């Protein structure tokens, strides 16, 4: 039923994330936000918290009671404006995740340890176990929760950068289904009482690459060697398992298609390869060579070199 609600928001492209933790082995300090909002006393599961405890619920509400209750809570939060601007980027480094965060405080008050202002990163996996009754209510299981306090104080309107790192994530089943969010929360009343979330953003690690290719010399003489250099750079947030395919032009030896399968690590890894072909004797025309890069992670790229081509300069316009 919570699954149904989560799927409805996702289908409507609403900015809502549903996450789940094991109440007996909670990660980070997130469950403390629930208790800060509730206070002491006995409760029944599940515990539900929206925006760091701005709204909470507990106990089995049945159906459609739970659906209607949680939907009303979420819709009320969607109507609130964010009170911070966050730019966040996630990096998968081996089996850890690293986050670069830029926070601009728009809350109207200074954020500091005095009001428990904290930047969090939550890493979760879309995971539905074989047995739907086990470890499953939202299908989005939290795998890591890390945080850092806002200290020294961050004045209203001020911006600061933060970094966050998770420990090794040994509990991930499928890294292609891992996502992350970064959020900032604080205690509006000061050092006690319920927390409230100022803003949250997606911080998934994303695959990205650039491809460059060089052909030297240009022009190249008939019967002479032509040196190609391919350079693929990982400019994304995760290792790339690439397939590099170079289609050699006609009129060079050896002819055909060359393929390599490098792993290009993040952050900033570079794969570079140089090889030499020989131009056919007597051939003076253009030599067009294309390299294409695909990756298991989804990033793609291509580059073309034209040797012995005639240069002409054309005006470039763009219709918008």
């Amino acid at each position: 039923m919570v699954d149904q609600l989560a799927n409805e928001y996702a289908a409507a492209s609403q900015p809502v994330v549903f996450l789940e933790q094991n109440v007996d082995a909670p990660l980070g300090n997130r469950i403390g936000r629930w208790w800060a909002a509730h206070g002491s006393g006995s409760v029944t599961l599940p515990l539900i918290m929206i925006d760091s405890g701005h709204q909470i619920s507990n106990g089995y509400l049945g159906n459609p009671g739970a659906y209607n209750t949680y939907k009303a809570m979420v819709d009320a939060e969607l109507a609130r404006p964010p009170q911070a601007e966050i730019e966040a980027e996630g990096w998968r480094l081996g089996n850890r995740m690293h986050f670069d965060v830029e926070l601009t405080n728009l809350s109207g008050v200074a954020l500091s340890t005095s009001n428990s202002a904290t930047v969090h990163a939550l890493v979760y996996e879309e995971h539905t176990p074989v047995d739907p009754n086990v470890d499953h209510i939202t299908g989005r299981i939290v795998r890591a929760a890390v945080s850092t306090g806002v200290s020294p104080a961050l004045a209203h309107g001020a911006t600061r950068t933060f970094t966050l790192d998770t420990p090794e994530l040994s509990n991930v089943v499928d890294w292609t289904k891992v996502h992350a969010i970064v959020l900032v929360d604080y205690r509006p009343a000061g050092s006690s009482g319920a927390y409230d979330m100022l803003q949250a953003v997606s911080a998934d690690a994303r695959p990205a690459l650039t491809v460059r290719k060089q052909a030297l010399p240009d022009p190249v003489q008939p019967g002479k060697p032509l040196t190609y250099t391919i350079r693929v750079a990982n400019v994304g947030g995760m290792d790339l398992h690439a397939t590099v395919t170079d289609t050699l032009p006609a009129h060079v030896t050896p002819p055909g298609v060359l393929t390599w399968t490098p792993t290009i690590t993040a952050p900033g890894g570079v794969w570079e390869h140089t090889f030499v072909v020989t131009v056919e004797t007597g051939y003076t025309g253009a030599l067009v060579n294309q390299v294409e890069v695909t990756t298991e992670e989804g990033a793609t790229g291509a580059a073309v070199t034209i040797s012995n081509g005639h240069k002409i300069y054309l005006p470039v316009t763009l219709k918008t």
Partner: protein
Amino acid sequence: MSRLVRVFILLSAALALGWQPALTHLLAAQPPGNESLAQSRLVVLETFMRPG
């Protein structure tokens, strides 16, 4: 009127009518992985329960 002067007049007219070079749009493109305040609040619902 020389060809150069004609090109200058045509380019000036295009700019006056709001035409913008492609570079402007390339620079405005947002890098992947970032979200901005232009979006609404991202609501986070967290559940704590007992597996099984």
